[in-house]
């Protein structure tokens, strides 16, 4: 169950150009969060900007009661967050939403594909997968080498990590979905998780179609409430209905999502 709490910032650093990692004292949320869930974060106390911002749970340390967010300063709200230093307090709601469903079987080979800031929820997922002894390929894409996020963290967790950059400054030159494509072609993947910009996710959906390999993707929508009450964050699913990304997602089976 989600909680509302004032969390204290313990540490904040810019880990890549415009990307910030914020360590928060938030024991209740840390204790409850599952990979793929998000926190709904208030940026300041002014009526402008008014709404909370959804940010994925990037990492938790249940022992220490800390929770980490990894975010890009994309606009006014996240810029306000980036301006805060240790000791400042922010209002958090969460954990919210339905996260990734962790496979029950043993010995599965899993691919995680992250585009840009899409890395945020996948790191927490990876930790969970690794702790369950799955074999994980991590595919990380970004515009340039310096924009690549968490590469070392992934490696430290013992996963097989490959990189793709738009300009070829690190790893494969091209979209991260190229890496996924090769991996799928090699037949070595039982399950795919992906998070990133819509064109990337759409491509992932395309790659998985007809392969029989199941996949889950984490979607982004502009949100009001974050708890399923306002119906503003919907995406269309196969049945033709609109489902709430905040409460029915943000993680959906890849084949459920209708790309409009």
């Amino acid at each position: 169950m989600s909680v509302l709490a004032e969390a204290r910032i313990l540490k904040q650093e810019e880990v890549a150009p415009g990307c910030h990692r914020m360590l928060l004292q938030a024991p209740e949320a840390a204790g409850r969060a599952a990979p793929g869930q998000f926190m709904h974060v208030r940026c300041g106390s002014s009526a402008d900007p008014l709404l909370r911002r959804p940010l994925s749970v990037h990492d938790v340390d249940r022992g220490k009661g800390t929770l980490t967010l990894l975010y890009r300063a994309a606009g006014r709200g996240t810029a306000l967050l980036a301006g805060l230093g240790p000791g400042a307090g922010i209002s958090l709601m969460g954990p919210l939403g339905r996260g990734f469903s962790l496979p029950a079987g043993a010995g599965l080979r899993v691919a995680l594909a992250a585009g840009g800031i899409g890395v945020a929820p996948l790191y927490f997922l990876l930790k969970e997968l690794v702790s369950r002894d799955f074999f994980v390929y991590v595919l990380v894409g970004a515009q340039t080498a310096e924009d690549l996020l968490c590469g070392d963290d992934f490696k430290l967790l013992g996963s097989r990590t490959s990189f793709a950059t738009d300009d070829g400054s690190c790893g494969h030159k091209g979209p991260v979905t190229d890496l996924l494509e090769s991996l799928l072609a090699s037949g070595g993947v039982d399950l795919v998780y992906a998070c990133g910009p819509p064109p990337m996710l759409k491509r992932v959906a395309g790659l998985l179609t007809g392969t029989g390999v199941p996949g889950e993707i984490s979607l982004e929508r502009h949100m009001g409430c974050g708890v399923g009450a306002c119906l503003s964050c919907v995406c269309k699913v196969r049945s033709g209905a609109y489902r709430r990304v905040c409460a029915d997602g943000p993680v959906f089976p890849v084949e459920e999502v209708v790309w409009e």
Partner: protein
Amino acid sequence: MSKESKNGTPAGSGKNGRGDKNPVLAVDIGGIFMKNPVTVASGTFGFGPEYAPYVDLNRLGAVVVKGITLRPRPGNLPPRIVETPAGMLNAIGLQNPGVDHLVTEILPYFKQFDVPVIVNIAGETVEEYASLAGKLDRVAGIAGLEVNISCPNVKKGGMQFGSDPLTAAEVVRAVRAATGLPLVVKLSPNVTSITAVAAGVAEAGADALSLINTILGMAIDVKRRRPVLGTVTGGLSGPAVRPVAVRMVWQVYKEVKLPIVGMGGIMSAADALEFILAGAAAVAVGTANFVNPRATMDVLEGIEAYLVENGVRDINKLVGAAHG
């Protein structure tokens, strides 16, 4: 002239079992007895369970559920929301599972709570409003209906009904004939004269009024050079609209002798008190729920503190008090 005694302290007001030092908070909204004046704005609180992790529903004066239509509605093409200065635009388009689903699947949820449930209804025709009211007339667990003649986000019906005193009255008469439930009629702010519409629906049999619904607005994405919302226009809510909402409550209170549920940008107890002093007997918290899921409780506790600090023994004595 002050109309402080317009709402006599309702019969139920002693029920909170409090000593004399605790002010009376109970209000009577046209036959809906609320243990305190704080409720929620339809569409901002879902169907009830969504905010239960944050708010004890028993502490609310009433719960108003998301607008319901005769048949299920898929809602509008996204994007449905955009943030604006101190506000937001929404164009949900009354996405809802339809009245039958409400009755069988949603209302039973409230059995575990001791809180009046108000069902917000919307139709595309006068007949639809009447059938909705008829269907809900004898359903257990409904304290009253809020007749939404003011939704800016549906093509047919919706706001059109609320834009004209005559059609507004027509809807209310039809609903009145179909049910004995208390009727709160929700007014649109997108009119030249809110008092004319208020007088029209009062005359047609409304028991109470709620105002304001959202103000029609829009935003344009200057990069894409297209409207942001899938439906072009949407409804503006949040603190930005509060001055307009307070003004309308003030005007309606002066002209129409019905209890008013005031709403529009209430974020805090001070905001709520503006509405009460302007003439609202109850207040609804809307967009603020998104920002602070405990906003209703903060408002309630703040009102209580204000009454105590100022030695006001009954909230009803404050209603309209700024009219002097």
